[in-house]
């Protein structure tokens, strides 16, 4: 097996604050292989955005990142200087954000911003960069691409702006792309279109992608692997088939019950909900992070929660018998 493109062990994000340090990301492990699509799911506030920002080295100054290992294509991201990170960002790892309306600089044209993404990393004549910008705008399905270059962000709709953001992320053909809920802010009617487009491009250019999404339907269609995040921890990871067909963590089961399933959910039958709220992120959590909302919670949930596995399917719950303690931390 080849070494993964991205390998993360025990990644933590801490936010010091007056009323005690927040721990929004509490030691997560995962690997991302070349050309693979990893979907991260979990409710709002579970730390998905902070995880992706810490991979890019884009956490604010007030946030603290730590990890045992963070390697991207053989480069140790933990020891990388600001300059080294700048060379990676945009060139070899790119990010698409949730907010297309505000993610483009209002005072520069689309063309300027696309070209900048390329010229920051490659020495080439401006005309050539411009040609590449047109090519990518066409690739993301924007008509009259050449004439769009002179337009400003406020002249474009949200959907178009997100297409531009996708084009911008692809300018340097990165090896990895992180898309943080790229369609959440868009009209439902165009969400599927944009995701389809992103997915096709990622496959076509043979990039790896971390896709953060709420839409489990999307996950089922595009993901190679799924990571379920809850209160700063990855409670379950595995292939789509493993996680969707045989969810082993009660939280994953709860999430899957929240979506209607054709053929299984009858008309008028209530959908599942997960009662309760996410626990406070202040201070360390002993035992299982999910126990306050779990219907199966018992005394064992207060102790240490071993990571258990069957093949690559990893989860952290004491209740599912018959699984061996995990030998690896990530699949």
């Amino acid at each position, binding site marked *: 097996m080849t070494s993964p493109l991205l390998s993360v062990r025990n990644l933590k994000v801490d936010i010091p604050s007056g009323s005690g340090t927040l721990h929004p990301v509490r030691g997560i492990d995962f690997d991302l292989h070349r050309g693979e699509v990893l979907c991260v799911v979990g409710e709002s506030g579970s730390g998905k955005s902070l995880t992706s920002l810490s991979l890019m080295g*884009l956490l604010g100054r007030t946030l603290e990142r730590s990890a045992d290992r963070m390697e991207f294509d053989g480069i140790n991201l933990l020891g990388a200087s*600001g300059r080294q990170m700048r060379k990676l960002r*945009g060139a070899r790892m790119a990010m698409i954000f949730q907010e297309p309306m505000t993610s*483009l*600089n209002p005072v520069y044209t689309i063309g300027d911003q696309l070209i900048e993404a390329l010229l*920051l*990393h490659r020495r080439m004549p401006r005309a050539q960069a411009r040609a590449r910008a047109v090519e990518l705008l066409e690739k993301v399905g924007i008509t009259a691409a050449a004439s769009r270059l002179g337009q400003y962000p406020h002249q474009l709709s949200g959907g178009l702006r997100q297409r531009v953001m996708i084009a911008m992320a692809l300018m340097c053909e990165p090896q990895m792309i992180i898309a943080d809920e790229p369609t959440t802010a868009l009209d439902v009617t165009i969400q599927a279109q944009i995701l389809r487009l992103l997915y096709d491009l990622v496959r076509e250019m043979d990039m790896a992608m971390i896709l953060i999404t709420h839409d489990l339907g999307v996950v089922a269609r595009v993901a190679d692997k799924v990571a379920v995040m809850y209160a700063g921890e990855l409670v379950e990871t595995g292939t789509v088939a493993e996680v969707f067909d045989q969810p082993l963590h009660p939280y994953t089961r709860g999430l899957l019950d929240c979506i209607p399933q054709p053929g299984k959910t009858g008309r008028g039958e209530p959908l599942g909900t997960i009662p309760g709220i996410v626990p406070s992120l202040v201070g360390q959590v002993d035992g299982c992070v999910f126990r306050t909302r779990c219907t199966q919670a018992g005394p064992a949930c207060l102790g240490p929660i071993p990571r258990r596995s069957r093949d690559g399917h990893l989860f952290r719950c004491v209740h599912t018998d018959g699984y061996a303690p995990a030998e690896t931390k990530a699949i």
Partner: protein
Amino acid sequence: MINFVLRRLGLALLVSLTVSFLSFMLIFLSGDPAVAIAGEGASMADIEAVRSQYGFDRPILVQYFAWLGQAVQGNFGNSYYFNLPVTDLVADRLSVTVKLGLCGMGFALITAIPLGVIAAMRPNSIVDRTALLFSVVGQAIPSFWFGLILIVVFAVQLRWLPASGTDSWKNFVMPTIVLGYYAMPAIMRLTRAGMLDVLNSDFIRTARAKGSSELRVMFKHGLRNAIIPVVSLAAVQMGFMLGGSIVVESIFALNGAGYLAWESIARNDLPTVQALILIFSMFYIVFTLIADVLNACLDPRMRSS
């Protein structure tokens, strides 16, 4: 863009006309101008003679347009006090005031903007607090006091700079600092606030995600957005400096237009006051126009609205 400029130009013209009418009407403010010109103890016949000589017997609108026709050609009549053409009197003084205003604004901008940016890069740091202190002091100390302190230190004690007059560039150093320091705090704080706001925007994160250097993030993406409101503020302050630097002009005996305005009011020299008010207002109007056009150049959203 051209549409925008034309619209603003039209608006500026309308405002100028209104202002010119108001400054023309000033002459009737202090009673009958013919009486004032004829002087104390003049007979009714003398007053009537003055009235027809100066044309005060014509309808007001006719008088206004006659005056305006002359004014746009740069002719504001004779000063009551010096009995010289107002234009000659004002031109000399105005060049001093404009020089001082430009220097003062230049000084304010080149200190305030970098300070504001640096303060915003590290909010609540020592640098930020020092800059804040600097600006609070600038707002709190009166110009005349600061000017006098400078004179005592640099002219009297150290003898580096002349205390008064307009002979060389050295005469302008202290007035520039006093005037500039007066305008600096507001510009600095607006720059700082604007930068803090902009640096929290999503597009700044995008710029970083592309691999931009920190310098590029600050200036190309940050300041370029944060500077837009600063341009409008600087324009208003510039108009104010050109009309209102009376205090600085009198401390350093600069004999500028502000000082002349003050003297002319005291002397009841209405044609001079009229001319100066019109000129000062035109400065405001022109600088506001420049700021609007600059803003439209800087902010594409303004152009299309």
